[in-house]
């Protein structure tokens, strides 16, 4: 398949409700409130063995028989003020990962430490109180704005509910946020349908940033926009990061955008993270065969340079019956016997460059 770079629909339109908790799932058993390993003090967010399974088939009584493993044992951490780019093919679980981190979907297993607290264990009210600090910008600015609310109310509503600014200053504050996101004052009373895609995405960004967040998940924020608008939005996000000291998870399938905005990059395949490294490292010398193939598909704007395109054979396997061993072995050019049986460990090979592949020593 050559259209790794194309993604038409977010994979989120899977079963939304009801959510199923897997009683016996590994990692779900919480032994103690304190994490087994001490947390990295520099990390704002630390994710350990995160799992999100959706029931795929149910028997007559509604008991799930098989699961879509949208996020399967993903671990990583993000330092304050940095950006982690998450890349991968359509349906590899990027969006689900982003939403599960924010507990918009309940995790099946694993821990998410935000500022030292495991948010999976918070009560709904506690979580709601924490939400202003963890925001998300959705992919589709057309459907993610309430059609019957004027822009000012959309942006100010949650600010008022969380009492982030005094009531008397609310309008002024909203106008200020709008200004910093490039929205003129007179948009305050207008309704979302009156705006173009780029303006709508600015409204979404303003809505998220008005809550004074520390951490923002950008779930393909520019995929639905024109190329000319994309750069504006990316620059806006970068400016706001500098101004507010934000930490981003930037989910995208557009590698050049990710290279531009990220400090670290995580590559996902079929719900698992296969490689994680700083942006320079991973673009200079990708270690995992899947990352290599993915990055070889990035067009280089230079007619004299001929990149060596690595074409992967076959389709992405179904996440319901993921291949045994290394999930990538069905399409890998370097597949060995061991790959089919043993899942490789996600290991650090120096300088924080983590890979899960049998090509590299496992011990």
């Amino acid at each position, binding site marked *: 398949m050559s259209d790794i770079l194309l993604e038409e629909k977010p994979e989120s339109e899977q079963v939304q409700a009801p959510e199923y908790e897997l009683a016996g799932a590994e990692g779900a058993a919480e032994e103690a409130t304190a994490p087994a390993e001490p947390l990295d003090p520099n990390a704002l967010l630390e994710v350990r063995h995160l799992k999100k399974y959706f029931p795929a088939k149910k028997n007559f009584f509604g008991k799930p028989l098989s699961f879509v493993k949208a996020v399967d044992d993903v671990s990583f951490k993000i330092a304050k003020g940095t950006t982690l780019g998450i890349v991968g093919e359509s349906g590899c679980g990027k969006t689900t990962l982003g939403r599960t981190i924010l507990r918009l979907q309940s995790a099946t297993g694993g821990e998410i430490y935000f500022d030292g607290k495991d948010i999976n264990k918070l009560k709904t009210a506690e979580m709601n109180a924490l*939400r202003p600090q963890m925001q998300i910008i959705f992919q589709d600015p057309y459907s993610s704005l309430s059609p019957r609310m004027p822009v000012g109310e959309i942006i100010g509503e949650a600010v008022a*509910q969380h009492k982030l600014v005094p009531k008397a200053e609310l309008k002024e504050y909203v106008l200020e946020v709008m200004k910093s996101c490039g929205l003129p004052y007179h948009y305050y009373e207008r309704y979302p*349908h009156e705006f173009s895609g780029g303006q709508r995405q600015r409204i979404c960004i303003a809505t998220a940033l008005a*809550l004074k967040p520390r951490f923002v998940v950008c779930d393909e924020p520019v995929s639905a926009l024109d190329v000319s608008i994309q750069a504006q939005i990316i620059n806006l996000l970068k400016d706001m990061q500098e101004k507010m000291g934000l930490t981003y998870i930037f989910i995208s399938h557009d590698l050049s955008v990710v290279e531009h905005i990220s400090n670290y990059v995580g590559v996902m395949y079929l719900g698992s993270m296969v490689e994680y490294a700083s942006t320079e490292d991973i673009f200079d010398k990708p270690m995992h065969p899947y990352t290599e193939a993915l990055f070889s598909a990035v067009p280089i704007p230079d007619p004299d340079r001929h990149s060596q395109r690595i074409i992967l054979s076959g389709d992405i396997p179904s996440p319901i019956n993921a291949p045994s061993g290394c999930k990538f072995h069905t399409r890998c050019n370097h597949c060995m016997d061991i790959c089919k049986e043993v899942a490789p460990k996600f290991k650090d090979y120096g300088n924080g460059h983590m890979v899960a592949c049998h090509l590299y020593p496992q011990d």
Partner: protein
Amino acid sequence: MFKYIVKRVLLGILIIFGVSIILYALLDSVPGDFVENRFMSNPNVANSPARINQMRALYGLDASTLGGYIKWMFGDWWMPEKWFWGIYDDGELIEASFWGTMKLNTHGAIAFDFGTSFVYEAPVTEVIADHMWTSFALTLVSLIIYYPLAVFLGTRAAVKQYGAFDYTTTVLTMIGISFPTFFLSAIVIKIFVYDLGWFELGLTSPDFSGSGWDLFWNQAWHLILPMFVVVILSIGSVMRYTRTNMLEVLSADYIRTARAKGLSERSVVYKHAFKNTMIPMVTVLAGLLPSLFGGSMILEDCFNIPGIGQYSYNAMNQGDIMFVMGYNMFLAVLTVIGMILTDIMYVVVDPRVKLT
């Protein structure tokens, strides 16, 4: 907006014209007219063709369909006397004029003269005006009870989709939808009127002679059972409609946005979701206008309530063309007004819609 409404009103007038033509043609072609229905049982009339023809002439039933319609619509006051004639042979009508044999000096529906009801022997508009309000009270109070209740139940069912509450309300309201009016009425009457004796049929007690508040309470007491039946029969469809709309809205992306903002569940459901669910719900409300004034034939007949529904049911049974035409024109006008109101409501509740 103003231009749009004017356009719609003009279109509505055209629709009402069309409805009246089709309706008149249908009623005129129904076998057995009013004279036959009313007087054939009287042997004096039945055996005398002359008397029958006299009656027909008197009621204006001997005109052709088109002639009759034109007379109904535009009246016959402007028609010269010579247009009306009939050739009789020993009382037997050989040939009647296109316009019938007798000029009745009516002004026509166009001048809001809907003629005199054959059955009730009073101007049609008067009969409708006299009995409309009983039906209106019955339907309006029922609507005020069942509509908010249905919206509330539907919203709750959607929020707790596939929960016990959802299944219970679904089953119960489905039972309500599936009952035919006459069947549920019969059961209710059997239990509460004949077995328990808590209520009685009719609008007022037979020997009642009070007025003012006494009359009001007496009538209100009589209307409880029919209202109960209306509520049971109507609540289901509105509740299902609310539930479907609410579910659709709850799965929308902007609801996820609202949750991500950390809004309370109350705020998400009742402010964001409910507001958007109300768009189709309010417009349905405007469409209910004709049924509000039109009464319910079967229900009123079952409970012997002298509302507009029962009156039109009797008139229809006896071939009272004048009353049935007037009544149906009344409904047609209400339907057209309801349609225009629906459009206006859309603009009010949905900022995205602009009428041009």
